């Protein structure tokens, strides 16, 4: 009896979590300080991994984890599906978000590897519509510094970044195009894409 209740409770929580992932709550007003705190803690985490001196493979895993922790992955994932996302079932959407989480974390985690031996520094925060854009500067070994910008929202229920720009290159736009091309190559078969994404990136 108690077990049944627990199981039901767990299922309800899971279903609730899934619903939350697909349809974000109405936004509370995100403050500039929250946006800054989120990116500061992201930057601190990345710098800590860089400075940890761990073997590279362990660093990649850490970068993947950081990406999945700080990004609003469901929103990024569904945006990259474009119009194909509208025809997808809820089960497909959940499977896609899950596969995309690994793909995007591996891909951008691999780009963070270029940061080994360098560091990220916070610059400033700017408001854009109802969001905040937080600028950081990357100082890498033997290279001119460059900008990495994060756009932050709390529409997922908590502050997360939903887009990043490396020297002006927009992750959402670039990935939407790339996912679109992957779908083209697979005859717009979403299930095939989901299966393949699990090992890509």
């Amino acid at each position: 009896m108690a077990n049944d209740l627990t199981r039901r409770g767990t299922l309800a929580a899971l279903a609730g979590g899934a619903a939350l992932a697909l349809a974000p709550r109405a936004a509370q007003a995100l403050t500039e300080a929250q946006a800054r705190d989120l990116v500061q803690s992201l930057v601190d985490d990345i710098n800590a991994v860089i400075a940890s001196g761990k073997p590279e493979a362990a660093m990649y895993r850490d970068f993947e984890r950081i990406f999945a922790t700080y990004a609003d992955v469901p929103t990024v994932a569904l945006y990259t599906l474009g119009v194909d996302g509208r025809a997808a079932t809820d089960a497909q959407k959940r499977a896609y978000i899950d596969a995309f989480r690994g793909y995007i974390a591996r891909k951008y985690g691999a780009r963070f590897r270029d940061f080994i031996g360098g560091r990220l520094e916070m610059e400033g925060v700017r408001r854009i519509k109802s969001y905040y854009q937080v600028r950081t500067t990357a100082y890498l070994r033997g290279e001119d510094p460059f900008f990495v910008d994060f756009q932050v929202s709390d529409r997922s229920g908590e502050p997360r970044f939903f887009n990043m720009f490396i020297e002006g290159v927009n992750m959402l736009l670039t990935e939407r195009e790339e996912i679109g091309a992957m779908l083209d190559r697979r005859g717009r078969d979403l299930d095939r894409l989901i299966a393949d994404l699990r090992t890509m990136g």
Partner: protein
Amino acid sequence: MTRDARHERRSVAAATLVAALLALAGCSVAPEDAGPVHDPYEAQNRAVHDFNRGVDRAVLRPVSRSFRGDPEAEPSDLAVVVVNFGENLGAPQQAVNRLLQGDLRRAGRNALRFTLNTTLGFGGLFDVAGDMGLAPDDTDFGETLYVWGVPEGAYQELPLLGPSTERRTAGRVVDIFTDPLGSVLSTEQRRAAAAARLAGRVIERGRYGGAVDSVLYDSADSYAQTRLIYLQNRRFELAGEDAAPSEADFTDPYEDLYGE
């Protein structure tokens, strides 16, 4: 032919080219609602892209790897010297372009960098100006055209040179004819300069190897990814680091997905 006559002929040729190319640059303007990419020459560009990718795979990539050695190592002293030498020879040209853009501060910085590096830096082998806090400043006549209000024009992928826009291509041609060093250097010196720039490209290819490989060889559509990444980055650089985030170019996934 005297040097003056040669110089004059070159100036006339340059002026004619500028006029012709400005007309060309103006000929393909993106429709207002075209989105971020204006690419009417896509079929031809894709053929060039395949060619460039073949060259990269067969030559640039393997050579840059063998130059680079250990991928995690700091760039070698030789690589740094070659890159410095090539960059220094570009500084007078950049000073001229900054002047044409009305940016006296950066025109002066480039002129000073060239003077310091050519003298104290042993002919540009060492970037002593950079060590003094005068960071390198990259520009070109394409940027000058941007400052003058010339539209970007269509996207182009050029053989060997890679991604460009009509405006940037026009700028490249003008830069060939307006390099202040062009009339000063001997033929041998010009060859050395060209060799240094080419070697610099190989070294850069090695340095950004992972990122370039991922776009060229891991993308589902490497042409489209190269195009989008190039255009975004070029526009970002032209807008300058202090440009406010643009609401017009803002991607709002929440509105797109949830219609909020």
